[in-house]
Every structure is written in C-alpha cells, then in structure tokens.
C-alpha cells in the first residue's frame, strides 16, 4: 500500500479516495505476497472486507471525521485475536486458529474488544496473520501451518510470534497490523522485518478476545511502518474495558498530536549497562550508540543505569508465563469447540483427552509440560513462588531507574533475523533471543522497537545481499506511551531506516 494509515484515513474522509479502493489495493497486494509464499497470512477476509468497506464509505458521509480516525484503513490481525465469523456463512466464516491444529475448525462468535474499536474507527480487517502456535515462539516456525519467511531474506525467520503481522506490514500489504506480546512477540519480529512495533503498558489494551498465553503478561501490540501510525492504531484500541478487569482506567491521551514538534531537550535517557554485555551483535550496539548520540546532540542527557536483575528475566518468564500457559491451554480438550481427535467407538473420555491434545505442536507441549511441572505438588514454592518474587525485583529495578531517567534506550534483539531452522533444535537458545524484550513484559511497562538501519547478514560481510534490518528499543515507565512515541518519532525523523522489503524505500 502506498500510503500510511493516517494519510490514507485522511484521504478517505476527504473523499479523495474510498475505503473500497483501499481494500482492493490491499487485497491485490496480499494476493501478490501470497503468491510469493512468504506465508504471512492464514486467512483473507475478501468478501467480508469488501462489504465492510462499503459500509465505511457510507459512514464517511454520515459521521464526523473524529469518529473515523482509521476510515477505510486495511488492517491485518494476528490470528490469536478473535474476529467474529459465522460458521454457517462461509464468506464470513474466517477462523481464529492461533496457528494450531487444536482450533482448526474454530470460528469465533465474537469480536475482541480491540477489533470492535477498530471497526468503530472505520478500519477494516482484511486478513488474519500467521504466528507461532498459541503465540509460543520467537520465529513463527512453530505455526502448525508452516513458518513465515523474512521478507528481506527468505532463508531467515520473520521473528515471532507475531511474524505474520510484521511481514504483512513490511511487504506493504497493509499499513498497520495487530500483534500480541507475552515476551517480546511484537518488538522482535518488528525488528527482524524492519517495522515499528509497540508493546503498551500492561492493561492499556483490553485482553478480551486475545487468546490467552501468559495472562499476566499478554498485551495486544501494534505494528506499522511509522511511529505515527503505530501510535494512532494504539490510540484507537486502547482504553479501559468492562470485559477485562485488568484493563487500566487511565485516560488515553492524544499520542499523535505534536509528535513532530517535540525535541529531546532536557530528556534523561538511560543506558542500561546490562543490555550491552556479551552476546550482542556489535553492529546493533553501534546502532544504539548512534541513536544515543543523536539524542545527546539534540539536548538529551544520557545516564548509565543498572538493572541488576535483568539477566534473570528469561528464567522468570519461563517459570511464570509458562505456568500460566499450561493453565490457559487446559481448555483445549475437544469437548466444546475446536478439534477432537477421531476415536474408535469404545474409546474412553481419557482417550479423547490424550489423543486430542496430542495434536499440539512440540513447543506447545514442551511449555505445557514445563508449566505443569512448576505448578505441581512440591515444586510450586521453589519455582512459581520464587519466580513471582524475582519478578517483583525486576519491577523494583525499573522503578529505581525511573527515579533517575525518563526512558531507557537498548537493543531490541541481540542479533538480526536468524536462519530458518537455526534454533529449533535448541529451545533454550531460542528463548534467549528474547533477553532484551522480556523485561518489559515482566514489569508491565511500555516499550517500542523502531527500525534503525540495516546490516549485512554476517558481521564483516559488507558486500552480502540482502541486508537485514535491525531494531532499537525504548522502554518507559507504566503509562508513559506518549513519551515513548515522541522519542521514537525523533529517532525515526533523524535517520532510522528499516526500509520496505519490496525493494522500494518509502
């Protein structure tokens, strides 16, 4: 798609173009990308999207502009977010699969709160995107329907678990997309695919309709080509919801207004030393240094800070989030919806459970096993109890940092996108890829990853094509999204370049 979401919505509202035309352009680009077998999409809502576009064009004539901030904007949605379909009406029967065989015949009878708000704002869901099964993974290789390839290098992963949404935006199929995070699952694929990815404060966006993985971590996040679009999309879906007790009541400010006018004078930017240690690709470190220097040049102060418990983040995550996951996945039992294993006539109920749940993929089984183990009799205190206690320490580290700085600058990932299959044999190695992103999920704070240049696939391999995008991350205190968007926009303006994957620089 040529235009950014905010610009497109303006054009639709002014009558310069229509929602119908925007949806056609998006569907055409999706068809091209699908033909290229990147495998970013699990389903396309062709007929439904066209009908909805007609309706939006009607609304444009009838409603004030402020009611339609995303008028006619096509959106791609990660397939663990419920978009209502109708099983009995195939054109409107788009499934919500979570990338799992366990939900292969499942059609959600309701919209997620975020989807309801998107529709109200005039956006149109055109496609559901690929993901690691139940969002469990960092590469989208765990999708039951096959991996999503990185649009910049098909031999590499798109990242995960929101790999499909990141690839959909990077390839210009849609200007904006929804993903979800439990431990870096929006920011990491955004960094790998060269787009902006936002993980809001825990509770900013209702989780109603987001299929649960680690409930005390899960958040819907936004992906876009620009900071402004990511902010606009988040503003539309954010806000308290009576269907989610954990959604926060704090008002959603205007995150878009004044984005360009801001400058970093007086900003105290933190440099968390633990994030620049062993294992970090030096080129990503140097990208962070460039960003830091741009900020200081424009009047920000840089302060070194320590987050002493940061290195325990992955361990805590793999105790607490996985315990919650084992619980959240207990409902997939073949009784009320979704997949039930075919069984011989004399099968028992237990056969039904075991055979049905055998259809989970290896990573999901691994996490269910681990989560069940840490919650089981005799281990609870040592693992879950200890994990939540250390989690509180990690929060406290951040709270102490906010006494001294306004935001933290860090890498999003230790390396650019890795090769397909490179880490599947070593789950722990895969988990460690989330080392810089997972703390924000543990602490419930907002974080944003923006593309910040490209590097050759290998260190020192300057002549190699293609180059891979890298991302840098800004984290802030709870509810400080506005500040993060401003810093991110400043860096974007001052030369962050991820670039589109179709060859054109936009």
């Amino acid at each position: 798609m040529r235009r950014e979401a905010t610009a497109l919505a303006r054009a639709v509202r002014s009558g310069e173009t229509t929602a119908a035309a925007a949806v056609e352009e998006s569907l055409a680009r999706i068809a091209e990308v699908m033909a290229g077998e990147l495998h970013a999409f699990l389903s396309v809502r062709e007929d439904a999207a066209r009908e909805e576009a007609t309706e939006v064009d009607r609304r444009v004539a009838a409603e004030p502009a402020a009611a339609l901030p995303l008028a006619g904007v096509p959106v791609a949605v990660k397939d663990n977010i419920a978009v209502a379909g109708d099983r009995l009406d195939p054109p409107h029967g788009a499934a919500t699969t979570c990338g799992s065989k366990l939900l292969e015949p499942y059609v959600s009878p309701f919209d997620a709160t975020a989807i309801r708000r998107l529709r109200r704002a005039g956006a149109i869901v055109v496609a559901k995107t690929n993901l690691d099964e139940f969002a469990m993974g960092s590469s989208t290789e765990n999708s039951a329907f096959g991996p999503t390839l990185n649009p910049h290098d098909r031999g590499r992963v798109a990242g995960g678990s929101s790999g499909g949404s990141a690839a959909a935006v990077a390839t210009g199929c849609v200007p904006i997309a929804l993903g979800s995070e439990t431990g870096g699952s929006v920011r990491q694929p955004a960094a790998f695919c060269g787009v902006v990815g936002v993980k809001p404060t825990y509770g900013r966006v209702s989780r109603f309709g987001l299929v649960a993985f680690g409930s005390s971590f899960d958040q819907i996040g936004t992906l876009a080509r620009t900071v402004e679009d990511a902010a606009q999309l988040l503003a539309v879906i954010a806000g308290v919801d009576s269907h989610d007790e954990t959604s926060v009541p704090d008002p959603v400010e205007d995150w878009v207004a004044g984005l360009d006018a801001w400058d970093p004078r007086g900003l105290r930017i933190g440099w968390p030393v633990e994030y620049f240690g062993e294992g970090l690709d030096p080129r990503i470190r140097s990208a962070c240094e460039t960003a830091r220097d741009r900020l200081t040049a424009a009047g920000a102060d840089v302060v070194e800070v320590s987050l002493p418990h940061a290195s325990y983040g992955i361990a805590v995550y793999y105790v607490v989030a996985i315990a919650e996951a084992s619980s959240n996945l207990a409902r997939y039992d073949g009784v009320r919806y979704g997949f039930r294993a075919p069984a011989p006539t004399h099968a028992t109920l237990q056969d039904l459970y075991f055979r049905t749940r055998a259809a989970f993929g290896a990573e999901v089984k691994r996490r269910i096993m681990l989560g069940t183990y840490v919650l089981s009799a005799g281990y609870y205190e040592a693992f879950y109890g200890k994990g939540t206690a250390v989690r509180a320490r990690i929060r406290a580290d951040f709270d102490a940092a906010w006494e001294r700085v306004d935001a933290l600058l860090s890498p999003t990932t230790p390396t650019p996108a890795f090769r397909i299959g490179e880490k599947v044999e070593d789950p722990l190695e895969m988990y460690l890829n989330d080392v810089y992103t997972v703390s924000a999920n543990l602490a419930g704070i907002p974080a944003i990853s923006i593309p910040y240049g490209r590097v050759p696939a290998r260190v020192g391999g300057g002549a190699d094509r293609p180059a891979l995008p890298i991302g840098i991350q800004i984290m802030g205190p709870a509810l400080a999204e506005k500040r993060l968007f401003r810093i991110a926009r400043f860096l974007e303006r001052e030369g962050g370049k991820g670039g589109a994957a179709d060859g054109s620089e936009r």
Partner: protein
Amino acid sequence: MAAEITISADDVRHIAGLARLELTDDEVERFRGELSKILEYVAQLESIEAAVDAKDAGADLPPARRFRKDRVEPWPDPGTLHAEAPDFAGGFFRVPRVVE
C-alpha cells in the same frame, strides 16, 4: 530447588498424565532432556534472595476494583455455541462415557 535437576522418564510421564498429553517414547526421552536443561537454567533463580509473595501484583493494588453489575445479559443465540461442538446431541455436549 536442587541445583542439579534430573527428571526421569517417569516424571515426564507423570506430568504428561496430569496435562493429558499423549507422548510417544521418543517424545518422553526428548522432553526429559529438554526439560532438565531448561529447569537447570531456571534454577539460577535460587541464588537470588527474594521474598515469596502470594501475588506479586499485590504490591500495587488498584484503588477501586471494578465489578460487573448483577444484570442478566444473555448470549443471544446459544445455537451458535452448540454448532461449534464436535459432538452435540439432543441438547447436550457429548463425550465418551466417563468410567466411574
């Protein structure tokens, strides 16, 4: 937690039983190794002194919890929910007989 965590094949089978996961013998062996390795990694938490709280989120309790009003708001069409079931017969969700 023990610094050295060894998980036996029987442990794996017991956990799989609790979680109702059917595992092949190969899977049992693979998970035995992987879980041991992950739990060993996770055991680094042992070295941190941190008090165990019932709910870590308890530190910053929300000032006013939101409730649902006791109002009946029925789902408009239970039939859509019946239609999602793998086996719905005579008004009931059906499963193989529970052996009691």
